């Protein structure tokens, strides 16, 4: 298992390295932004550009880029949005809102989603099951920004329960801040709940029809005991990895939700970097999103391997 894990991690790092290199070269091939000579920070930015080897071959530039990252985690300075500021520092200030919003959303969607899934599976082929399943399908299909519109229109505008936009400021653990995060949290939740419900229901209905469930009942367990001790365990083989995957995914957030609710997070930063063509920020967020995506699939793979030794993808044995 250790060898398998190590293999997966190394492979993911290789993939990450290649993607970073490709994106880096593609970004550097773009004509650099003209600098504003009137601003005092321009000398800093120009000096940084020189130090990063702007006129050297791309591979040399990439070498300098890697060296800067490995020696002092330096991703360059912002050339447009936060003129002259360290990209990493800007990035770090944007992390907490994104993570909090997604964390709150995940925390309450997991129990609700799994609960609904179990409920539907136990009532299989009843009216409740059909209702839940169809609703799940519908909910998954509707993109999150439609929910965001609904939440914003009804809860923020019509009922005025929540503010339209998330509060700015750095005090993330105050009550007003929490309330102002709720619309974004809610909008993100519908799809996640439906996702968990669907996975749980599909897996549990299959497990419940297995022979070992019958055996568990014949040896004298009640239905509840059999379900919790035998069915749930097997069902979790699939559900747990997807929970781990979602936990990694909470870091990346959603650009659309962040834009609609004015969450000062990473999605918004990326979007602004794209529209303002701030390449250094864009490069950092690109690496970040790539790493998150790869890490999520890595965690899913490895946790599958841990939970269920039958599926060790890519392992020779």
């Amino acid at each position, binding site marked *: 298992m250790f060898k398998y894990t190590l293999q997966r991690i190394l492979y993911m790092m290789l*993939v*990450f390295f290649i993607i970073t290199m*490709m994106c880096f070269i*593609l970004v550097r091939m773009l004509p650099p932004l003209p600098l504003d000579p009137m601003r005092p920070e321009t000398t800093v930015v120009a000096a940084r550009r020189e130090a990063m080897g702007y006129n050297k071959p791309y591979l040399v530039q990439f070498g300098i880029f890697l060296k800067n990252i490995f020696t002092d985690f330096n991703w360059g300075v912002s050339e447009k949005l936060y003129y002259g500021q360290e990209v990493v520092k800007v990035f770090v200030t944007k992390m907490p809102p994104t993570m909090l919003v997604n964390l709150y959303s995940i925390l309450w969607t997991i129990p609700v989603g799994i609960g609904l899934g179990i409920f539907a599976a136990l009532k299989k082929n009843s009216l409740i099951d059909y209702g839940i399943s169809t609703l799940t*399908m*519908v909910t998954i299909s509707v*993109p999150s920004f439609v929910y965001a519109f609904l939440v914003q*229109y009804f809860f923020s505008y019509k009922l005025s329960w929540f503010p339209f936009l998330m509060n700015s400021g750095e005090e993330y653990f105050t009550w007003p801040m929490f309330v102002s995060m709720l619309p974004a949290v809610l909008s993100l939740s519908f799809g996640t709940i439906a996702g968990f419900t669907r996975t749980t229901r599909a897996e549990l209905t299959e497990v419940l029809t297995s022979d070992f469930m019958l055996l568990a009942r014949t040896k004298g367990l009640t239905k509840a005991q059999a379900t919790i001790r035998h069915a749930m365990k097997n069902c979790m083989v699939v559900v747990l990895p997807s929970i781990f995957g979602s936990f990694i995914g909470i870091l990346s957030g959603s*650009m659309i939700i962040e834009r609609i609710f004015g969450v000062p997070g990473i999605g918004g930063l990326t979007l602004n970097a794209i529209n303002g063509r701030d390449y250094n920020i864009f490069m950092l967020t690109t690496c970040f999103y790539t790493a998150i995506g790869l890490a999520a699939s890595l965690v899913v793979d490895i946790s599958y391997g841990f939970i269920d030794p039958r599926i060790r993808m890519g392992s020779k044995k």
Partner: protein
Amino acid sequence: MKNMEFVESISQEQFQFVQKDAQLRDHKLETKARGYIGDAFVRFRKNKSSVIAAWVLLFLLVYAFLAPIVSPYTLDDTDGVYYNAPAFIPAIAKLNLGIMDGSRTLPSQTQDSLNAWRGIAEETGYDPVLGIVDTRVETILYRGQEVERTTYTIETNRYYEPGVMYRTMSYEEFEKVQQWQNETGIQVIYPYVDPEDINGISDMPNVWYKCDNKGTPKLDKDGNLVPVYSTRTHKAGAEYNSLRIEGDDGSYVYSTAVSGAVKVRVCYYNYYQYKNGMEPTYLFGTDIVGRDLFSAIGKGARFSILFAICVSAINLSLGAVYGAIQGYYGGVIDMALDRVSDILSGVPFTVVATLFQFHLVLTGKASALEAFLFAFVLTGWIGMAALTRKLFYRFKSQEFVMAARTLGASDARLMFKHIFPNGLGTIITSCALVIPGVIGSETSLTYLGIVDLNAMVGCTLGTLLSSGQASMTTAPHAMLWPSVYFALLMICFNLFGNGLRDAFNPSMRGVED
């Protein structure tokens, strides 16, 4: 034993031969044989939600293709006054059903503003006020004294609200409007009101009565508005030989001169009819630039659907070939190709789309649409390739393949003639699930403004949603209809696709209970 005795007791005459003359042969099967497609269709029909989704989907598709044709407006018909206006169809509005009447709710209106609305109603004959929803009496502090003030929440017709507006037009156009008035008998031009008669107010075209310097009407003792139309003929812009309003003895002036043109007061509702040849008719209302939402949604959706079909067709063929090579040859080739697709699938789609926009569009090498298409094609085929690869692994070691190989079939023939058709159903039905995915990402990216297709296709669902969201509180309909259409499209495509996939999956045969 007892039975035997019973049988023996039956006399011989009572027996007779069965089928003595008849020949025994199999009956011909009277039911029709069911093919693969027919079988799938039967299974599809059992899935009620998919069938409903299929019908709704058909309706949505028909809408997308017909709406821009049926609608009297094109995307270029924007209106600077009737923007963000709610649904309005004159014929239905006249029935007073409370729908399609262009109504919106305006809170905190005072008695003075009610008089102003009345002014518009009396002059143009179109009463903007549909009804008073709520009356509220509150005591407020005004200059140190407590004053009771009544405010009203009223429902107004957004299309009658503008009332009369100033328009500066050339002499020829002024002539043309007069001619049109004579032909149709609809009053567009209303008598001019000189600012000098209304306390120097020059930015309130709807004031035609005696008022104070804020435009608040001064009523006469019967509570009527007192007209102050201009009779200063020396200020007239051009001759006027057309319809005159009621109460005009021929002395009213209908225009004033401004540097080489005339400035007139036009009733916007009628001016609109003059310009467009019809009354404003908007089934879904208008968007933020005054476009007909009915046709704009159709246009945006039509683009999205065609684009998605195009993308999935390309990805389907690319992915099928790639996956076929991977699955058929296996081993080192499979591994090498797998690494390539691993790397490509690791790049977030937003990044791919952005880089394509940066590299191709900003440098002018390709249009936004082409760059967008490339972005979808670059990573979109990976799912399809994985699916094909799996199918090939399943089929390639089966007997029929070996038989074909023994007969000397080439690799390409084996791949695409013998193995591929077996998985065709699965592959094609998975397309029905790829299409909503493409529509979803296309809409997200145009919504975020990362990809700007407006110059190419006029509008997309994403841009409609984005502008609708901006005016959510004042014009909820501009957000509602695109969202409803989009959500329905996604739901139906997904339900339909799922049903199709299950129906074409032979392992599902007979499982349903």
